[in-house]
């Protein structure tokens, strides 16, 4: 299956930089409260992936997942990962560098 997620050049650069700093990474598209529409960038394997999660694709060697029911309800055929200034406020690793990832359709 073709990847359902692509990244902007700026996001790919950020992934490369973060990978050099933290090692192999994973991304999980969150939902709900607070930063709920943001993806969460974590060391690979930090969040246990279950049978009800969907792999959207890989970006720079980094797997990107979403909860399967959320994916069905969001009904986005494709995702674009981008990055913007301002720290991510959750556990997401890029927040330490004063930036945050976001997904667009």
């Amino acid at each position, binding site marked *: 299956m073709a990847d359902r997620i692509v990244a902007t050049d700026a996001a790919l650069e950020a992934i490369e930089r973060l990978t050099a700093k933290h090692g192999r990474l994973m991304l*999980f*598209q*969150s*939902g*709900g*409260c*607070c*930063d*709920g*529409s*943001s993806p*969460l960038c*974590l060391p690979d394997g*930090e*969040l*246990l992936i279950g049978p009800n999660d969907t792999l959207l694709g890989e970006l720079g060697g980094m797997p990107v997942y979403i*909860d399967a*029911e*959320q994916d069905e*309800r*969001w*009904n*986005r055929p494709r995702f674009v990962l981008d990055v*913007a*200034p*301002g*720290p*991510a*406020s*959750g*556990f*997401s*690793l890029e*927040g*330490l560098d004063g930036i*945050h990832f*976001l997904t*667009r*359709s």
Partner: protein
Amino acid sequence: MARNRSIMVSTVDRRIALMRHHRCIAARRDGSLRNCAAHAGNCTVLKPASPTPWSILRFAELIQDVLPAGVINIVNGPGAEIGRALATNKRIAKISFTGETATGRLIMQYAAQNIIPSTTELGGKSPNIFFADVMAHDDSFLDKAVEGLVLYAFNKGEVCTCPSRALIHESIYDEFMERCLQRIGEIRQGHPLDPSTMLGAQVSTSQMEKIQSYCQIGMEEGAELLIGGHRSELGGELNGGNYFQPTVFKGHNKMRIFQEEIFGPVLAVTTFADDAEALEIANDTLYGLGAGVWTRDATRAYRMGRAIKAGRVWTNCYHQYPAHAAFGGYKASGVGRENHQMMLEHYSQTKCLLVSYDPEPLGFF
């Protein structure tokens, strides 16, 4: 099959409720203090949301003479550095988290690894349902219902229970929305510290961008913009601030603006034909945190309240947060309850001291 444990709570004086709400919101956004383990006699470490570091520190200053040193400890900073270190620390006996679903899963995972209990509140997309009989009379109850819809606008990026989906009976839609839109148009935006301000600034630039992006999505998926939809330019010293107009879209429940939590003053409105359809739309969501039911028919209010899969169903009111009312979610809105005696139970152990005062042996073997 989950049992429906219904708890009836009568509402309190509205001025007190509003004060409590402000306090609760400040505490929640800054560390879920209302869920605080200290209420149950435990020492507590609070990690406030990083965009809002200050108000909980101010609150701590106010109570510093009341509590012994070390009972409440506040740690500010980025979640990636501090959140994980706290959540995985072996000295933590119970963990509570308010935030988004992926971090909620992480918290529950860390709790499982350390074999400690956890509770989570992970947001919602709360339906606010207005039945035709709210317009049976032109009276103060109708005015209260209009106000109940407009409460969606009370969201600067901190209100998990924002009534962000309004479901309105098709027979009253035009007239009811006309009244609501007029009231929304009168909302005064301004400096957050000005007491006459009704809607202040959004919590961060990234939150503003998110709201703008969802408004764009709403337009692209064909929703009808009824009011707002843009950044507010308030001029003067507020120029360029994170102000967003109270916004209403009309559409249908499958649209993304009805399914995704925007966390800003953005309402998605749709209509329903009968009670069954209202219920179907209300429950057609990943979440189940809050809900509102507005009707003059008490039996309908009970039927709907029982059937809506949400942890709190405000009935002929919204956004009241009395301390004795259980609060928390069904489905992806999380696990456990805040407030109420149930909250104390989350932070307590049940111990059974089974004591015999009979000196004689059982007589077995």
